[in-house]
C-alpha cells in the first residue's frame, strides 16, 4: 500500500470510529428517553388526574422522539 492508500485507509477507520461513537451516544440518549417514558407516568405522575399529567407527558415524549429521529437521519445522503 502506498502513502495515499494508508491515508485513505486511516481516514476510513477514523470515520468508522466516529460513526460508531455517534451510534452509541444516540442509543444511550434514546434508551434513557424510553426509560423515562415508562417510569415517570407510573411514579411522579401516577396521582395527577389532569390532562397536564401523563397525557401531556407522553405527547412531549413522542415529540422529542420524533425530533431525535429527524436529527439522526438528517445526514443521510444518496
Amino acid at each position, binding site marked *: 500500500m502506498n502513502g495515499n492508500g494508508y491515508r485513505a485507509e486511516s481516514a476510513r477507520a477514523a470515520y468508522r470510529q466516529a460513526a460508531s461513537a455517534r451510534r452509541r451516544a444516540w442509543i444511550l440518549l434514546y434508551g434513557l428517553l424510553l426509560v423515562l417514558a415508562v417510569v415517570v407516568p407510573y411514579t411522579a405522575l401516577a396521582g395527577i388526574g*389532569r390532562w397536564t399529567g*401523563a*397525557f401531556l407527558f407522553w405527547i412531549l415524549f413522542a415529540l422529542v422522539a420524533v425530533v431525535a429521529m429527524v436529527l439522526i437521519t438528517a445526514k443521510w445522503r444518496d
Partner: protein
Amino acid sequence: MNAAGVYSAMAVYFILGTLVAWVSRKGMGKGMVQYFLANRAMDGVVAALSYSATTYSAFMMVGLAGLTYAGGVGALGFELIYLSGLVLVVFFGPRFWLVGKRYNYVTPTEMLGDRYQSKWVAVVTAVAACLFLIPYSAVQLMGIGYLMQGLSGGAIPFMTGLVIAVLLAVFWALIAGMRSVAWTDSLQALLMVVAATTVMLLVVYKGLGGFGNLFTLLERDYPKSLTVPGTGYFTWQTFLGLSLPWFFFSISNPQVSQRLYVPASLKQMRIMLVGFLIFGFIYTMVSVLWGFSARVLLPDLAKADLATPTLLALPIVPPLLGLVVMVGIVAAAISTIDSILLTLSSMVSRDIYHNLFPRAGEDTQLLVGKLCIPLLAVAAFLFARQQLGLIATLSVAASAGLLVMVPAIWGAFFWSRGTAAGAFASTLIGGVVSLYLQYTGWKPLGLWPGLWALGVSVAVFVAVSLATRPPVQRAAEFLGYLEEELGRHNAI
C-alpha cells in the same frame, strides 16, 4: 345507518380503490422484484402513506379507542412508545435497504437465510411469520365484521363483512402486487386520517363543547382515566406487555420490514420515515381522543370495542360522515390485510417453495406467490370466523409471537458471531414459548408472553451461537460491505 347506505358506501370505495389499483399497473415490468417490491423504486410520499396504512389497522379506531375507553391514558402511552420504536428504522432501515439491493433479497427472511447461510433459517422464520400473521389478519377481518354489523344495527351480518373484506384485500393485492397495494394504501391512508379527524373534531366540538370541556369533564368525572394504572387495566406489567411487542414492530413484522427494501433511495426512505411519524402521531391522537370522547358521552357501554360504532351512530354525527368514517376504518383494515397477504405470499414462494424446490424458476415462484394470496386469505377468514376474544389482545398476541425473530435480525446486522443454529433455535424455541404462554394464559411473575418470548429467544440465540460455528466468510463479506456503504451514505 341502514344496510343500503353501508353497502352503497362500500361500493363507491370499491370502485375508487380498483381504479387506483388499475392505474398503478402502468409501466409495470415482470419478475419477483417488480411484483413484490415495486422494482425498489418507490417514491417517499407513497411509501410513507403505504407504510402508515399497512401499520395502522382497524385496531386504532376500534381497539385503541376501546382501550382508551376502558383503561384510559395508558393506551396513549403504549401507542406513542410504538411510534418511538420507529427509531429501529433509523438504524436497521439503511442496512436492510443496502443489502436488499446488493444481494437482490425479496423478503426479510430470505436475507436471514442468506446471511446465516442456511435455507432452514429462511424456512423456519417464514413459517413463524405465517403462523403469527394469519391470526393478525383475522383480527382485522373481525374488526370489519363487528363494525359493519354494529353500524347497520345487525342488518349486515358479521360474516358478510368478513367476506367483503377478504374479496377486496385479495383483489387489490393481485392486480399489481406491491404497486396496487401501495397506491390503494395511499388512498386509504388519506381517507383514514381525514375522515377520522373530521368526525373526532365534530364530536368534541359539537357533542362536548370543545377540548377544554372534554378534559374538564374527564378530570371531574373520570380522573383515573388520565393516570396509570388508572382504572386498574394498565398495570405496569400490562403496559410493558403491550408496549414491547409494538416497539419492535417495525423490524419484527415482515409486512413492514419488507418495505425497507422498497424506497428508491435513502432520501426517499427518510421521507417515508418522517411522513409516517407525522401520520402516526395524528392518527394516534385522534384514536385516543375518540376513546376519551366516548368515555364522557357513552359511559355505560357493555363492551369497550363498541365505543366507535356507538359513537358513529350518535345523532351529532351526520349519517354521511359516519359512513365515510366507517369506510375509513374498513380501509385501515383492508390496507393492512392486503400488505400482509402480499408479504406472506412472497415468503411462501421465495423462502419455503423455492428452498424446497430450488430448480423452480422466477416465473414459477411468481405464480406460486400469486396463488398463495387467495389461499392465505381463506386461512385468515377461517380463523376470523371463530371470533376469539377482545381485538386488542389478539392483535398484540401476534406481535408478541413475531418478537422471536428480533434476535436473529439484530445478529444479522450487528453480531458477526451469530449462527444459523442460533437463529433457527431462537425462532423455534421462542415461538413455542410464546404460543404456549398465549394458549395457556400463563403469565409467570405477572409478565406478558411477549416479554418471555423475547427474553428466551435472546438467551437461546446468544447461547447456541456461541456454541456453534459462525459463517465467518459470509459474515465478513456482508458486514464489511455494510460498513463501507453506510459510511458512504453517512448513516449510523
